[in-house]
């Protein structure tokens, strides 16, 4: 069997469309897919690129069509409340944490994908989870502190910095270690998982996958030393504080679509 035979022919990527910057993501996904297919055709004529379809997701039925999902920027409180009323929160949790489908959250999407958040609205707010991190909402303050800054993102494997657009942005303030006790069982668990049912195996995979820091940005003056975490990945889940969809730079969308293809193999 060749590697190519494993590559899915059709991949449907959804953008959660309850509120926020939806079409910006769809527009960049389309550009990224076009770039991937032109890259592939020049690299090797025998390699096939999957056919990508991009849809807006407002219902459980639409979510079930998706192989991967983007949760866009917007207001995380609004998205959570609307998702709750639609009965979408549990299907989203299932999608991310049980089915382990590739999911990327930008800004409010990162908040939704965190397992905990601080500076939430009074009484807290519902999250989807999937990343064992705690996010700090509105880390930089109000809109007047929103900014654009150059990010060095090693995973892009390019010198050229990425223009990070931070709008009332959250950051990852803590990587949670609750999964570490489970990872003690990793070896046994993953071997047992081989023969077990698929969901158990997938759950096991999640436990073995640690949170990777994929991007940082210097803390603003007067708010401590060092860098804030602004991009993380844990297995199938990717989150960014900033908004690549508000730029015309397709590199992160291209990278993520490649990750999606890899994970769906």
């Amino acid at each position, binding site marked *: 069997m060749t590697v190519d035979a494993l590559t899915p022919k059709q991949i449907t990527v959804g953008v959660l469309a309850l509120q926020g910057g939806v*079409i910006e993501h769809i527009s960049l996904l389309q550009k990224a897919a076009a770039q991937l297919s032109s890259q592939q055709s020049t690299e090797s004529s025998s390699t096939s690129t999957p056919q990508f379809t991009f849809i807006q997701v407002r219902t459980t039925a639409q979510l079930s069509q998706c192989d991967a999902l983007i949760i866009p920027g917007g207001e995380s409180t609004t998205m959570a409340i609307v998702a709750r*009323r639609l009965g979408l929160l549990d299907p989203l949790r299932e999608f991310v944490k049980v089915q382990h489908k590739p999911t990327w959250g930008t800004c409010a999407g990162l908040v939704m994908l965190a397992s905990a958040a601080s500076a939430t609205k009074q009484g807290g707010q519902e999250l989807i989870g999937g990343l064992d991190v705690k996010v700090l909402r509105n880390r930089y303050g109000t809109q007047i502190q*929103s900014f654009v800054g150059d990010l060095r993102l090693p995973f892009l494997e390019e010198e050229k910095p990425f223009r990070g657009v931070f709008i009332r942005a959250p950051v990852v303030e803590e990587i949670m270690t609750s999964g570490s006790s489970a990872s003690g069982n990793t070896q046994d668990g993953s071997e047992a998982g081989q023969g077990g049912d698929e969901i158990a195996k997938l759950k096991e995979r999640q436990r073995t996958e640690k949170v990777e820091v994929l991007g940082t940005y210097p803390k603003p003056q007067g708010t401590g030393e060092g860098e804030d975490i602004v991009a993380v990945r844990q297995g199938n889940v990717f989150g960014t504080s900033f908004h690549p969809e508000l730029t015309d730079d397709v590199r992160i969308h291209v990278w993520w679509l490649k990750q999606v293809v890899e994970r769906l193999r």
Partner: protein
Amino acid sequence: MASTSTSNGPNGQSTTDDFTVKAGLAQMLKGGVIMDVTTPAEARIAEEAGACAVMALERIPSDIRAAGGVARMSNPSMIKEIQAAVTIPVMAKARIGHVVECRILEQLGVDYVDESEVLTPADDQFHVQKDEFKIPFVCGCRNLGEALRRIKEGAAMIRTKGEAGTGDVVEAVKHIRTVNAEIAQAKAALASGGELAVAKLAREIGCDVELLKKTAELGRLPVVNFAAGGVATPADAALMMELGCDGVFVGSGIFKDAKTPEHAAQRARAIVKAVAHWNDYGELVEACIEHGEAMRGISNAGMKPEERMAGRGW
């Protein structure tokens, strides 16, 4: 949600970082409802209902109308209390042309300033030069020329003026229809007569040629465009989405004539639902039931010209 993308990036437009950040927040508000609130308790009701932002003001427009006199920027202490009560963006209104009220709101760290005809204008010659501020601005419009004049001054978000505080949606509908018709006209001009035809139209409607050309190319306003002014019910909100607005401001419609805070909360939830599902009539039935009795309202047809707020500004 409109079918084409807005502002920067996805359209390949070059914008400054400053404008990317200003217009970007408006992009993140799309598909949402921005509610007028006058107290921290009302702001909390709005947040719990799923509002994507609140507009802090001393009186809702229907009460400003009833009270008469001069309507000004709200007291900063009240705005601060609302900022402390919620985590969603807080907007506030300044009088048309009142540069200092805008600077005060900027200093307060509100997330957006609405240079608004709902307040009594402070300058009968000039709107505020908004690109000199770090804080973003939203402005009202009745037609494309007015929208593009405001964008030229630096507005990063546009809304229809409608007729605030009436609960009568007819003016908001008229304004979005006018904007849409003029965008279609600009597209036709660009297609048939190129830049010369666009320049001629720009002279006629009194706006910047480059912005009009960009609008013609995009087939929509180059910034996010919300509905405002008379939107009172879930059906009104969905109607404005159907006409191509990116989201909705609801002023008096939530709290005016609400019997109890719970009734206001129900109305607020219903309008959020209606905007999220504007083309799903099953959901809209639910939203209308949840909404209950609407504000009584004032018909536009019977209003004297001097009673109209939309005529303020140019």
